[in-house]
């Protein structure tokens, strides 16, 4: 049986994580993971809700040692928890604070006794490569979360491939992430990159600009900031003084060359981007200011049939059809030409217009309605959705209140515009051009719209 080590660090004294009270070594990490594994009921599925990145890492490793699979939903709503419990009735929820998990069997992260530290002589444990180590969830085009199974061998390969692509295999960095560790980008770029790219990570998840500066200052150089266009643009706009940063990394949404250039000028660090999806894992990287082309991560391959592109090989599980329009270039490079219509990505959260329209149409009193994503005003700003609704007798606020029960807040329309009729054509379709015209008339002219 093919087995892959839990982590790639060769030295038990190497630093694996940084916490507010100082460094945690690889040996400490293994000891903590073994101690937790000894207490964890091996139920099959571990819903790892730890907020602290280090505790998440301990829980993940302990679960692997007990042959468990880590469940990593994209939201923590009561509805998500209910659905998970239906599908994985033997799950337990590992919590490191007072996260509310009604009805789920809860396992509070225990205080682990370092005095009883296991000797490193036990070595680094290995996990079968085909073990289903994690299930990540995406919101599919219907809005129903879809389970993406990840085997341990592929996850380890992903961490290695990203490290090579970013040059970290030669020079490991300390990773400071503004993104949650449970979601694919944070999971790959702050956790797998530490396990199999030889890096260490900051245990916290800084949010405000001042938090990010403090977190960076708490770890030694070289430092890599794992962030998103949104957090990055807020960080730069704040104008606060930043500790030295050696590499900037962004993903989840396209980064403009303007913001990339500004980030490089302000920090002196190269601004790198990762392209990927929860389904495929990470696929490619680029330095944004070097041009639009992406370079595939080692081992990954793209195949095209018609206007459909699929990723395979390397750390990709099977063959994954991508939701973007892609133009292949020589030398493992490619260009992205936007997403296939209908899919919406706001600040890394995904859904489809079809799903949102369905939810809107299901609101009692709504006769007709359509969501509309205006042309981007700036790729780094957050473009909000607009909705045009025919609902005689209802106010915009009443409809918004009803929608709030059905869709995530980030997808709520700003604004929701009441109209007498939608510009449907003879086949009942809503041409985008006509919606754009309606938007120009009702929203832009009325002085709404960002920027």
């Amino acid at each position: 049986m093919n087995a892959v080590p839990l982590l790639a660090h060769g030295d038990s004294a190497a630093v694996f994580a940084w916490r507010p009270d100082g460094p945690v070594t690889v040996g400490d990490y293994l000891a903590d993971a073994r101690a937790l594994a000894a207490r964890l009921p091996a139920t099959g599925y571990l819903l790892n809700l730890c907020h602290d990145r280090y505790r998440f890492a301990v829980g993940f490793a302990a679960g692997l040692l007990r042959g468990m699979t880590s469940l990593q939903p994209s939201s923590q709503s009561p509805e998500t928890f209910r659905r998970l419990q239906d599908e994985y009735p033997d799950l337990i929820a590992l919590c490191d604070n007072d996260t509310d998990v009604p009805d789920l069997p809860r396992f509070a992260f225990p205080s682990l006794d370092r005095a009883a530290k296991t000797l490193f002589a036990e070595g680094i444990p290995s996990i079968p490569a085909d073990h289903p180590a994690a299930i990540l969830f995406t919101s599919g085009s219907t809005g129903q979360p879809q389970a993406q199974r990840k085997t341990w061998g592929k996850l380890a390969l992903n961490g290695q491939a990203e490290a090579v692509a970013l040059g970290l295999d030669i020079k490991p960095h300390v990773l400071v992430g503004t993104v949650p560790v449970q979601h694919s980008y944070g999971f790959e770029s702050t956790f797998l990159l530490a396990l199999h790219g030889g890096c260490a990570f900051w245990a916290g998840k800084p949010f405000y600009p001042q938090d990010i500066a403090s977190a960076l200052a708490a770890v030694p150089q070289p430092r890599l900031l794992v962030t998103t266009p949104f957090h990055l643009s807020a960080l730069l706009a704040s104008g606060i003084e930043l500790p030295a940063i050696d590499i900037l990394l962004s993903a989840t949404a396209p980064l403009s060359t303007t913001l990339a250039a500004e980030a490089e000028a302000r920090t002196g660090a190269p601004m790198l981007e990762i392209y990927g999806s929860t389904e495929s894992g990470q696929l490619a990287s680029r330095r944004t200011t070097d041009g639009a082309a992406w370079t595939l991560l080692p081992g990954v391959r793209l195949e095209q049939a018609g206007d459909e592109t699929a990723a395979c090989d390397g750390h990709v599980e099977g063959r994954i059809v991508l939701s973007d329009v892609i133009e292949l270039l020589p030398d493992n490079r490619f260009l992205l030409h936007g997403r296939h219509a209908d899919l919406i990505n706001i600040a890394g959260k995904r859904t489809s217009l079809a799903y949102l329209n369905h939810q809107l149409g299901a609101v009692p009193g709504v006769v007709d309605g359509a969501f509309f994503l205006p042309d981007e005003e700036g790729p780094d700003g957050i473009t909000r959705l607009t909705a045009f609704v025919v609902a005689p007798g209802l106010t915009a606020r009443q409809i918004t209140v009803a929608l709030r029960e059905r869709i995530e807040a980030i997808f709520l329309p700003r604004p929701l515009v009441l109209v007498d009729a939608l510009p449907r054509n003879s086949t009942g379709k809503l041409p985008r051009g006509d919606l754009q015209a309606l938007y120009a008339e009702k929203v832009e002219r009325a002085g709404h719209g960002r920027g």
Partner: protein
Amino acid sequence: MSQAAIEALLPEVAELIVSALNLDIAPAEIEADAPLFGDGLSLDSIDVLEIALVISKKYGIQLKSDNEDNVRIFSSLRALTAYIVSQRTQ
């Protein structure tokens, strides 16, 4: 801290929120004691960061996550305004 000072600043902070977030309401429509999140204005974490940014620019206040009062600070327009009144440096 003076209740009068908070009361006086409420309209300005309401205006700041509406313009920063491009909300589809008039500033005066934000109820001072209604929750900003959840059933109130339904703001999300992106909005929090944008509000934090305009507050730092306008009043010289840098918010931090390890501030235990964060939940309270963003609980309502009045709470946010009270925090600004107590912390402002400009």
